[in-house]
Structure formats: C-alpha cells, structure tokens
C-alpha cells in the first residue's frame, strides 16, 4: 500500500471521546500535541511484542509522507500506542476466596495453574507462567494453542478488545533516503524532517528500495484487523 494513500483517521471515539480532529489543534497539558498509533497484530501479535521491540530498538512508526502531524514537540509530545488486543475482559468471573468476583488476570492465571496441576507440567506453559510481562494480558495470548487454552478461554469468556497500553515520548521525524537520493525531498526538509541513510546492521548494506523481501510497509499490516 502506498503510504500517501493512508489518511489520518480523525474519528471521535465513542468510548473515550478524547480523539481530536487535527483541525482543532488541541494541546496537552504540557502545551504539545499527542497522537495515537496502532500497532498491527499481524506483525506484533501481542502488545508485549511491541513493548519488547521498543525497549530494544526504540519506537519507529511509518506515517504517510503527505500527512505529517503538526505541533509535536521533542520530549513533550507523546505517542500513545494502541493494539487491537490490549484490553482483556472475562464474561464469567469466578468468585475468589472472599466471595468477590476475581479479576480477569487472577481468574485466567488460576485456571491455567489449576490445569497444570491436572494435566501435568508443560515446560512451555511453565516458562510463560514464570516470565515477566509488562502487559499482563499478553501472557495468555502467548500461551501455546491447546485444547486446555480453548477450554479456559471459553469457560471464562475471555475477550480481547482494542486499547491503549503504553506511550512513548516523541523525539523526531525521520525520512529514510532512497539509494539514489542524497538529501530528503525539499517539502520534507522544510518541515525539519531528519534524513537518514538506513544500513542493514547484519550485512552493512544500504537498504535497497525494491527488496520487498526485507522491506515491509507497516501500512500493510492493518489488513489483518
């Protein structure tokens, strides 16, 4: 998909009512604009995948070059990160020890731990149960597919829905030069967009423009939604 054809979506969220139209020029408390981007589940199956990547490599989000956000301030503007499976809920919450409905996280964990005792220990399941997750619901998404998992999800009525799970502070806009280019296009340079020559770390070669085996448009990752 050509990024130029991807339009920003100034939809006002019925749930939050806090998405703003670009024309309204709304500022955050710090005097800068914040934006929201979603990470596609095809390339980042869970929010935890996004978190791991950002910790390791920082955040980099491709945007349409004819729709550059305005009003972003280095170190003040925030990039909210959304994922289609950010929020986990359960429809059939069991009662806890004190007779109150268990939280979704506690209920699912209890079910998996109980299943482990009945079905025996699966090293993969044990590893996931023991792993640290910064986005807790991702743990259950990363559990290997099995009859046990399906039964637990069905019995508890586990549902995942879109949400915002993190944010990062904006530090800049970058234009990746095509091999034949020596500077960024004038209209982008005029907006202060930083020109970068991307070199593949593993090979030391400049990223080829037409090598589609290596180059995947993030704009294409939304087709799974």
């Amino acid at each position, binding site marked *: 998909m050509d990024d130029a054809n991807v339009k920003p979506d100034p939809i006002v969220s019925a749930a939050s009512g806090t998405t703003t139209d670009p024309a309204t020029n709304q500022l955050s408390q710090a005097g800068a604009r914040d934006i929201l981007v979603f990470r596609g589940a095809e390339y980042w199956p869970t929010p935890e995948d996004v978190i791991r990547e950002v910790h390791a490599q920082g955040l980099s989000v491709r945007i349409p070059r004819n729709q550059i956000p305005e009003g972003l301030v280095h170190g003040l503007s925030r990039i909210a990160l959304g994922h289609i499976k950010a929020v986990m809920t359960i429809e059939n919450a069991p009662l806890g020890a004190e007779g109150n409905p268990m939280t979704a996280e506690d209920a699912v964990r209890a079910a998996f731990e109980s299943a482990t005792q009945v079905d025996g220990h699966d090293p993969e399941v044990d590893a996931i149960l023991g792993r640290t997750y910064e986005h807790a619901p991702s743990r259950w998404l990363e559990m290997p597919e099995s009859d046990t998992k399906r039964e637990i999800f069905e019995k508890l009525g586990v549902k995942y829905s879109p949400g915002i799970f993190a944010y990062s502070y904006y530090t*800049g806009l970058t234009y990746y030069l095509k091999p034949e280019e020596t500077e960024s296009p004038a209209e982008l340079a005029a907006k202060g967009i930083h020109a970068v020559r991307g070199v593949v770390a593993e090979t030391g070669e400049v990223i080829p423009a037409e090598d589609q085996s290596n180059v995947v448009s993030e704009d294409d990752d939304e087709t799974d939604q």
Partner: protein
Amino acid sequence: MARVNACYIEFQSSERAFTRFQDIEPIAGAIETEDKPVANGQASVETRLVTRRGCGYPKPGGVYLESQGEAGGTLPIIILLDPPIPHSHFHRGWVYVDLDKMLEQQQVSYVGSSVASAEEWHLRQKYQGIARDVFGDGVRIKNGQVIRFRDTAARILTTAGWVPGAMASAMLAARILREHAEELASLVEISKKTSDSVGK
C-alpha cells in the same frame, strides 16, 4: 526570532480543579528558545544501522515517527499503562488524542521501571517555565519537589485571588509569584549568578 515563552499553569483545590494554557510574552530573565539553524536549509544525512523490526526494515522513501528515548534514561523510552485504556476504534495511520484526558478519565496508573522518571519528566516540563519566570535563568526545580512547587504556587495564587485569564492575567501571576518567591525558594536550585539578579 524568539518564540513566545509558553507557560502552563495548573492547580487543584479541594473543591475544584482547573487548567489553563497560556502564552505569555518573554520577560526579563526567562529563557527563550529558538529553532536550531539548519545549514543551507538542509540538515545533514545520518547513516544509521538498522535491525529488523516486527514490520521489517525501514522502507526507503518512508517517513517515520520516532521515539528513541534519551541518553541515561532522562527521557524514558516507553511508559506502560495499567490498566490499558479501552479504545473502541482501530485507527489506520495516526490521530491526535488528548492523552491527559484519557489518563484522567480512566484513572490509569503507571507501571514499569521508568515510573518515577516519566512522571518527573512530564511534570517538570510543565512547571519549569514558571520557575524561570519567578527566579530567572538557571533555576531548576529540585528533584522530587515538582509537585510541591506546583501546589505551593497554586496556593499563593489562590490566596492572592488570581484567576486564569488573558495574557495580562498570566503576567500578573508571574508577578504575584515573584513577590512570594521566598516561599518557593526552598524547592528550587538557583545558580549564584541568577540568585544575585533576583534580589535586585
């Protein structure tokens, strides 16, 4: 051309909370920021080693929005929200949002190792400008004192009967706070050069 010094004032009382964003003219002693000059209208080209991400390698000809943190963790690279904020729409591309409002409505707490630095960073950006208006160039709100600085400034302004308003109101706020600078002094660090000028 110097930018207008943007100053944000927020304070809360037990009965109500209100916020205000105001642009006020540069005043003596306040830091003015300027856009960085770009040689010949064109920034230099950076060569960057890139590794594969979930979506592959960056696409030549593509524009990327970035968050790379800052050296030493002074700018956290990611802040996690717990619980996540439900959002009914999946958006292609990007949209502007009022993140402060979202966080307030959903009563989201922060999690992760960067909690303190994130909150400290964000709050400091809001109130550092006020500190400069009061004490001049070179002042810095002490670590861990940002919230106390905000609350003390709010109390001073409330006691003085100040209400948010137009630019003149913001100038008045700065003057009121200067007159009560001694109440804020213990919350900031001031260079000798600056402190000499404050008393004049």
